[in-house]
């Protein structure tokens, strides 16, 4: 094996390590900035589709409470004038490790007051216990519609990822640093060093684009087992957003490195001339 062939093989191995390290680093950053980012996830869950569906579900559940209690549904839905909950709020609570259900004594009391206001206003007699039962049912409907009932798996996932992405980021950066130093030493000429540096950048960008696109294709028929479907769809949208961001960033990196490498090449051509 000649020095040239040996250098080529070594350069290839080191470039693979750099590409893998870059993928790890940027992938971890992408997850951190999207799936594990409160603002991003709150925005996804505040989409028109999710908001209108949760409100629709609340109104449907309130109709059941109205049918069971003989108190008009509009009495209960006026609570939305005072409180503006949304799936976005539940997601924010998830990230802040607060309770993601909206069922509490305060909401029950609000519903009780709304019912009593209506009944007193219409001079109707009522039993306090029965109105309390009604308020409890309405509060349950409110929490079911706007809260997240079983957030444990999501919380565990978030905690796991939060504790891991630092490690993945550092490992990625370390891999890049460890592989880049010997790669540079393989070449004595400055233009060759610039060329392999741009080549390594391109490999990171290309790996990100390939991984992002393949993952996007794999999510076409994916349906997380999350009920109701609107939350499952929101999570798929969030994941696709993240993968799209990774692919876009990869494309930007490829574009930048291609531009730089062409500059180096053109400069080397003029020097050769």
């Amino acid at each position, binding site marked *: 094996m000649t020095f040239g062939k040996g250098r080529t093989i070594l350069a290839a191995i080191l470039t693979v390590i750099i590409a893998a390290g870059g993928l790890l680093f940027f992938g971890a950053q992408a997850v951190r900035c999207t799936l594990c980012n409160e603002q991003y996830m709150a925005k996804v869950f505040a989409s028109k589709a999710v908001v209108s569906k949760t409100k629709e579900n609340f109104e449907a559940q309130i109709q059941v409470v109205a049918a069971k209690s003989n108190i008009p549904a509009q009495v209960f839905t006026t609570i939305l004038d005072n409180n503006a909950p949304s799936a976005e709020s539940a997601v924010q609570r998830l990230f802040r490790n607060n309770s993601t259900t909206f069922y509490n004594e305060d909401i029950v009391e609000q519903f009780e007051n709304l019912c009593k206001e209506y009944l007193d206003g219409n001079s109707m007699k009522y039993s306090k216990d029965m109105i309390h039962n009604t308020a409890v049912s309405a509060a349950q409907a409110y929490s079911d519609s706007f809260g997240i009932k079983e957030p444990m798996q999501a919380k565990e996932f978030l905690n796991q990822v939060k504790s891991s992405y630092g490690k993945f980021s550092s490992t990625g950066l370390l891999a890049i640093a460890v592989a880049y130093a010997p790669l540079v030493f393989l070449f004595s000429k400055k233009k060759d060093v610039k060329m392999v540096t741009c080549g390594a950048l391109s490999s990171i960008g290309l790996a990100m684009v390939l991984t992002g696109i393949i993952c996007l294709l794999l999510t076409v028929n994916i349906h997380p087992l999350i009920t*109701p479907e609107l939350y499952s769809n929101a999570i798929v949208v969030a994941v696709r957003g993240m993968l799209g961001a990774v692919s876009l960033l990869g494309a930007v990196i490829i574009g930048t490195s291609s531009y730089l490498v062409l500059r180096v090449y053109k400069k080397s051509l003029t020097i050769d001339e």
Partner: protein
Amino acid sequence: MNHSQKKFVKFAAVIPAIAALLATVLFFAVFSRFDNSFPFDNKQSVFADYDMEDVIVAENAMLNKNEIIKSELPLITSNTIFGKISINSKSLELIYDANPFNAIGKCNVAENGKLPGEVGVSILSCYKSDNLVVKSLEAEDVVTVDTIYGKCEYQVIDTYYVDGEENIRALADGIGRAMLIYCDSTKSSGISNNYFVAVCQMTDGVKINP
């Protein structure tokens, strides 16, 4: 291609492309260890448990028999309207195992009971908004149930006021082909835990045998 150009193509294009491919393959090889984590694992995660399902209207089975074997019946699934119940010239649609929303304005046949006409107890309920229909029942009144598999007639044996839904079923003990129709017993607004129950026994119509 001169040496400089070959070197450029090799180190700036070919090697990065191959490296990117290999890094991608490595990523998927490692990632397959993590693809069983939330949210893509196969574990059900319930963020909210309301279900909005469409109501199905069952077609007439055209059985035209007085006695039917259960296996001859068409499959009646949840949220299916399969007949109507007539009480003192008022009628309500009969729906099987409806979710709470679909049960509004209808008489819901519980999934843990039998179908009208079957041996055992058929448990029917309706909401307070329709309780006047049910509460008008008295002993010896006749309740007619018209279903896709035929007509049944039940006669009210007695009526009760019961605390707690869990105490309703026992009222039909000892009655073959029984029907329990119940609703919130109170007139005033609000949800109570007291139920008006009409205990009925089948007197005529299509019988479903096991």
